[in-house]
């Protein structure tokens, strides 16, 4: 089980820092996104008419002047839908494409206009007369909790007897933390281009992480079987979870327009419409209560979470579940209770976002540990290290899964040493005593992130590989490329299998017509699942080639070896292309599907027990910040990261995921603030008001390393580990460091109750509140 794969010499093999397969097309502007494809003659452009109210009854929808406006070809409402007016990813029936009687968020689609030009569609849409009867709207999470608007029952996780353990502990604390949501801000907005075919056929080019779901929901909307709908996606301009469930709405409207007019139809949301209409990361309220001993070891913990789901269920159940699964983050809790309510509000339905509830779930315990350390006068790192999951597999998670692959003790100590954490922490505390306006802070936080879809049946993938008779290879699989480098990684896997150069492998657009019934490219599982499926397909063809060659040359199959673009058959050698040609002449099938289902995972949601994750990904980061105690402004000064990517399939791609994930997490916890007004209208719906990090927010001193000892204990694809989501949570170190600096502003006399995102305003107010408490002591 512990043999390490030997990297081959040829380029394109696994474990090598190969460039992204589209890099040259990216920099020359020749990479095609959906909106870049040449439009067919007659293509219509769609604009969506949205609700102006957060919660209202639609008394009348007068679209007469919209219909007669110049350039308008069709105006579509719920009544035009031949099939089902729902795009709920969980078939909850609560995600209407167009509102019928009630609108439940400002921005909800009511109708769509398809016109000869986008401007004509937009101008026409403004002529609509909608008569609203306003209804009481619940906007904030606290309002939702007060009104008990639970969308679904919340399951519980329970390990041991947490209440007894907390009561019996020598020290106790409790607190509340509000963590804000986050817009995906993929640079390419939501877009779909639907092309009607003959009969009921519909081809949809969509920017989606989940082509199979778009296919199915478009089919349901049109009232046709899945086979009539083909969904294709070559690449997305970013996804981050925002193109998991949300693209179905966009594709459904485009397909409906195409069906009703018989003409190709495109819907591309501009930035404001995208941000107003589509879902975001859930904001959470996190209540926690812990008991701990004099060394800071946690004896028992209770976590009561609440997620703002918005107006519908969408993926909120799985997201809130994952928040619960990560309430422990990296820490073994001998007794624990976890609960997460799923609250309805009259705001856009929140959805998947990198980490999928995990980041929010981890925030409570990281806050609590900082607070324990403050109460005990200890270095938070000591408290963290006293609680991390041991390597011996003896500890259970709150969902009763034994953590058998923990590297946390070793990883955190290695990072503490390489980052010089302890010396720097002492120096910072000394310098803070000398500085009045500016205070510094530092923190090391670990991440343990569970890998697998917690909905077990989603852990499957398919691939399709053709070897052509010239030896070139066509690769297709169910995963989608959103920039994360999945295509190049799977290409490397196939090139490795055949022993050929990567450029002999053509990586092709994901399409439901080639690989069916796929899962979303999500949960960091893209290369784990599709890499294995593609390897299986390649293995099948390779076995046929080996059998053919062995028979032809009358030697044993094991003496047919594929490497460096050549095939050795006993004493002979030929190019891969020659063998492919001979096999074709010999009437051997050179095409195969491949399939993979993650083994050994199971979970019983009713009892809250099981092994929902195949393995865990680990990492840790140290952040050092400075804050201005007069204004709350923050600078991140230095970041050190040590991340376990297993035996990385492509270290260059993985480094990109680590750095990009960290900075995205930094934005979530610092500058990115979603702000709704009292009427429930999102006022931060464009980059002028919604501030994701810029180049200048990245510290110059950023030291990132992939852990050299990393290796997946499970037989994943070449022993690699998933890397898409886990690094985002490394940014919690920056939030903890800001908290540390804010604590310094009180002279380390009160622990600041900082909420996220830590904007200058929240930091200043937290300092003021904590200083007030310190003054009373």
């Amino acid at each position: 089980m512990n043999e390490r794969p030997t990297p081959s010499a040829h380029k394109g093999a696994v474990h090598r820092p190969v460039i992204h397969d589209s890099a040259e097309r990216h920099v020359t502007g020749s990479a095609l996104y959906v909106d870049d494809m040449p439009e067919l003659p007659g293509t219509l452009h769609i604009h969506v008419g949205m609700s102006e109210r957060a919660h209202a009854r639609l008394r009348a929808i007068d679209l007469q002047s919209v219909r007669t406006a110049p350039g308008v070809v069709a105006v579509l409402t719920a009544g035009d839908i031949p099939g089902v007016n729902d795009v709920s990813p969980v078939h909850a029936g609560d995600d209407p494409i167009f509102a019928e009687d009630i609108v439940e968020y400002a921005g909800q689609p009511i109708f769509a206009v398809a016109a000869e030009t986008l401007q004509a569609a937009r101008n026409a849409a403004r002529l609509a007369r909608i008569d609203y009867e306003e209804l009481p709207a619940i906007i904030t999470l606290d309002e939702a909790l007060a009104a008990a608007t639970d969308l679904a029952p919340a399951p519980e996780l329970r390990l041991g007897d947490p209440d007894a353990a907390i009561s019996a502990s020598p020290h106790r604390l409790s607190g509340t933390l509000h963590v804000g949501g986050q817009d995906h801000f993929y640079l390419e907005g939501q877009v779909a281009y639907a092309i009607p075919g003959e009969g009921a056929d519909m081809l949809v080019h969509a920017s989606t992480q989940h082509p199979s779901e778009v296919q199915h929901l478009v089919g349901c909307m049109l009232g046709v079987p899945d086979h009539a709908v083909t969904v294709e996606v070559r690449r997305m301009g970013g996804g981050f979870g925002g193109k998991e469930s949300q693209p179905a709405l966009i594709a459904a409207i485009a397909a409906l327009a195409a069906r009703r007019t018989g003409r190709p139809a495109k819907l591309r949301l501009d930035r404001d419409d995208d941000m107003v209409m589509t879902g975001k990361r859930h904001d959470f309220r996190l209540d926690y209560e812990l008991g701990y001993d004099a060394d800071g070891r946690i004896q028992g913990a209770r976590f009561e979470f609440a997620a703002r789901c918005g107006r519908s269920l969408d993926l909120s159940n799985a997201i809130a579940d994952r928040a619960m699964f990560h309430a422990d983050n990296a820490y073994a809790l001998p007794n624990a209770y976890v609960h997460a309510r799923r609250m309805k509000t009259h705001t856009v339905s929140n959805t998947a976002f990198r980490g999928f509830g995990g980041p929010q779930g981890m925030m409570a315990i990281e806050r609590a540990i900082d607070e324990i350390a403050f109460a005990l006068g200890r270095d938070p790192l000591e408290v963290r290290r006293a609680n991390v999951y041991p390597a011996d597999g003896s500890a259970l998670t709150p969902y009763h899964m034994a953590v058998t692959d923990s590297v946390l003790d070793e990883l955190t100590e290695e990072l503490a040493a390489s980052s010089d954490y302890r010396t720097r922490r002492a120096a910072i505390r000394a310098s803070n005593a000398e500085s009045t306006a500016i205070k510094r802070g530092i923190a090391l936080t670990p991440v343990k992130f569970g890998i697998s879809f917690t909905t077990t049946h989603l852990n499957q993938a398919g691939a399709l590989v053709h070897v052509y008779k010239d030896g070139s290879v066509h690769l297709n699989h169910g995963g989608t490329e959103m920039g994360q480098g999945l295509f190049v990684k799977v290409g490397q896997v196939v090139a490795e299998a055949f022993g050929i150069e990567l450029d002999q492998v053509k990586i092709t657009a994901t399409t439901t017509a080639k690989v069916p019934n796929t899962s979303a490219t999500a949960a960091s599982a893209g290369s784990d699942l599709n890499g294995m499926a593609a390897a299986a397909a390649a293995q099948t063809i390779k076995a046929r080639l080996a059998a053919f060659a062995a028979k032809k040359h009358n030697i044993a199959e094991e003496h047919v070896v594929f490497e460096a673009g050549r095939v050795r058959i006993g004493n002979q050698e030929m190019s891969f292309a020659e063998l492919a040609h001979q096999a074709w002449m010999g009437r051997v099938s050179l095409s195969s599907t491949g399939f993979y289902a993650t083994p050994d995972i199971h979970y019983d949601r009713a009892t809250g027990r099981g092994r929902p994750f195949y393995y865990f990904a680990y990492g840790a980061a140290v952040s050092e910040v400075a804050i201005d105690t007069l204004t709350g402004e923050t600078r991140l000064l230095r970041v050190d990261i040590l991340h376990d990517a297993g035996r990385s399939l492509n270290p260059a791609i993985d480094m990109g995921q680590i750095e990009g994930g960290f900075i995205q997490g930094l934005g979530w916890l610092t500058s990115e603030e979603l702000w709704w007004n009292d009427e429930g209208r999102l006022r931060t719906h464009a980059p002028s008001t919604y501030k994701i990090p810029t180049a200048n927010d990245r510290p110059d001193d950023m030291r990132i390393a992939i852990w050299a000892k990393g290796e997946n204990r499970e037989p994943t694809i070449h022993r690699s580990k998933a890397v898409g989501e886990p690094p985002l949570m490394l940014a919690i170190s920056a939030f903890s460091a800001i908290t540390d600096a804010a604590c310094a502003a009180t002279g380390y006399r009160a622990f600041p109750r900082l909420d996220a995102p830590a904007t200058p305003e929240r930091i200043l107010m937290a300092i003021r509140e904590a200083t007030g408490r310190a003054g009373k002591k």
Partner: protein
Amino acid sequence: MGDAIRFLLGEDEHEISGVSPTMTVLEWLRGHARRRGTKEGCAEGDCGACTVVLAEPGGAGGLRTWPVNSCIHFIPALHCRQLLTVEDVAAPDGALHPVQQALVDLHGSQCGFCTPGFVMQHYAGWLAGSLTDRAAVKDWLAGNLCRCTGYGPIIEAGLAAGRADGPDTARRAATARRLDTLDDGRMLDLRHEDQRWLTPRTSDELARVYADNPDAILVSGATDVGLWVTKQHRRLTTLIDVTRVSDLAEIRDEEEALVIGGAAKLAAAHGPLARLSPDLGELMRRFASIQIRSAGTVGGNIANGSPIGDLAPALIALGAQLSLRHGDRERTIALEDFFIDYGRQDRAPGEFVAAISIPRPGATSRFACYKLSKRFDQDISAVMGAFRIDMTEGRVTAARIAFGGMAATPKRACNAEAALIGTAFQADAVERACAELAADFAPITDMRASATYRLESAANLLRRFHLEVSGAPTSATRVWELA
């Protein structure tokens, strides 16, 4: 008068007529020229995905080049210029430009959607010779958002490109000559349906056409007017473009004052303002992005009348005077008197900002200005505070304190100023002045900040100014200066 927009797209001459003059360059590129490498990310000049480069004859190398956001630039901006897009950067044989090669080699693209914008921004920096060090590269990138990479590889690629050989001077000179032949020196008068676009060439011509068309909208870089079209979807009828009024763009370093012409670009004013005060230099650095600063004007930032425009409070604190011209008449007012109320300025129809005169702070003056926003670069201020005091014999003889983001207009803090005059500018007086800010301002709560934060941080900015005047090094008061 000219009735067609003539320009070079890469090396090819193009002429556009018979289309709306408020069509954006991006719309023309993607829809008409079918060049789809340039992307729309936000349609408001805030993400940089649509960045392209413009060139015109002039400047040190014979050809002046600058990056702009094509999403909010109207097509008349192309007239007599060269437009370069991501499709123009690689060599004709397909060999990648050093900027592109570095982005490829250093893994600077992931999803790739923002990449053409970064290529063009780096390319513009390379053309301008500005990719000199890490800080310069990061400033150069302030207007380009990437959601995937975390920027590290993109910054490294900029540094690598900055080390490569510079542009081919002979080719640049040839381009300048071709562009010269496109310009017949006449005013462009474009008409389309109900729309008209005029490009006067001199201040006198501008004064005349504006007096004749007092309802016209003056437009320069369209960094705000562009959004009226792309965001508010307004139909603008008559527009007068001041970007070709060369004598209105002059900047004069006079002994007593810096005089900035109404149509001078923010980018052109950056250096002179930085020499007047390093704080103004830092303000300009954080003043939107290079693309916006290359397009927007000082006069536009003032005339627009925004309560959160950053220059007004700083220039009010410095005692700037505004010259306004209507026809042949010119008048001069104190800058703070220009702002009457939200959306209302002391500007008659047909009257335009001719110049802003900024007195140089004397030896007895101390000046500082601070911008507060959620993000350091390219963000609209929650609060913008500017402070100037003059001290003689240990006493404050004059105080000018102005804030943006605190009222419906940029506004002086008269009560706070009064609390300081005659004092020795010590902590107790400063505290009294801080308390007076609540009498000066009743700010609002919005998505940028709450009223509470605005009032409290405004007072704290005054306290910071006091710390600095009292001798605290800026490394102890300015967190953004920490590495």
